[in-house]
């Protein structure tokens, strides 16, 4: 009980920090913390394997990727906020919207109590043992038998992702001029890389 509330508070705080951090690097750090807390929560929900995966894959591998990208991007001058904010004042409405949705969810969930009917046959082994619900072996058996097809699909998705990334990354030549920056709306500033066209001789400014 206490554990849950501690975890909950930690999760909410780290989440908030993640989306509000000024610099992306801080965000990553908060996100790592968030994911670790989440992994603990998973374990409290009898999902050992996923808890482990959460730490290994998410907290380390994926977020490392973020850090790498950040490192790559930071080589040049501040690339993240070059133009004006085209949705100024979104924060208030966004928070309000989110709050409304949350209110609606809470209202809906409390209005109609969740109807949960646990699986009819009891779990074969006692909690904590190797074959208990959510244990790695239980999960693995489910993954390899009942849910084999989704598992295979997972592999396929990953492969497609790999191919996609390779394709994208092989788009080697930086063709700055091909980019169409936004075509409508007031343009207050030229894109950084685009040089100002030299003034025609004798042209009146």
């Amino acid at each position, binding site marked *: *009980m206490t554990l*849950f509330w501690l975890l*909950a508070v930690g*999760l909410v705080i780290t*989440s908030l920090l*993640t*989306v*509000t951090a000024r610099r*992306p690097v801080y*965000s990553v750090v908060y996100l790592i913390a*968030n994911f670790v807390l989440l992994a603990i929560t998973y*374990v*409290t*929900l*009898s*999902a*050992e394997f*996923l808890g482990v995966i959460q730490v290994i*894959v*998410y907290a380390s591998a*994926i977020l490392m990727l*973020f850090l790498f*990208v950040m490192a*790559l991007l930071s080589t*040049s001058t501040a690339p*993240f906020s070059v133009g*004006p*904010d085209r949705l100024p004042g979104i924060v208030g409405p966004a*928070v309000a*919207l*989110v709050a409304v*949705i949350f209110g609606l*969810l809470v209202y809906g969930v409390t209005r109609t109590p969740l109807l*949960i009917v*646990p*699986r009819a046959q009891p*779990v074969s082994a006692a*909690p*904590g043992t190797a074959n208990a619900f*959510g244990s790695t072996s239980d999960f693995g058996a*489910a*993954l390899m038998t*009942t*849910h084999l097809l*989704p*598992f295979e*699909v997972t592999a396929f*998705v*990953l492969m497609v*992702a*790999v191919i996609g*990334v390779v394709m*994208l*990354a092989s788009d080697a030549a930086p063709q*700055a001029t091909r*980019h169409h*920056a*936004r075509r*409508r709306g007031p343009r207050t500033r030229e894109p950084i*890389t685009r040089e100002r066209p030299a003034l025609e001789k004798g042209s009146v400014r």
Partner: protein
Amino acid sequence: MTPVASVALVNYIGLSALIFLIGVAGVLTRRNPLIMLMAIELMWNAANLAMLAFARAWLNNAGQVFAFLVITVAAAEAAIALAIVLITFRRTKNVDVDEIASLSG
């Protein structure tokens, strides 16, 4: 590990919703694509949390399998999204989502 039987399912769902909505708010308010992506990761994980909670309540590990699937897809998504961010940066030297408006109809 004993299940936290004393914690009602509703609490997990509420927590999940809260995290998800924080992620939503992040996507809506931030203009740094990396932070937006991280907010999206938050949303993925919030969903996972809900699924694991339900799986525990139903004692059905289909929810866990699906969470696994989500992690995979999230990984793939992150990889591709980051690649796109890089490409965009390489082409335009900036990754401001307000500037990159070529989706405009």
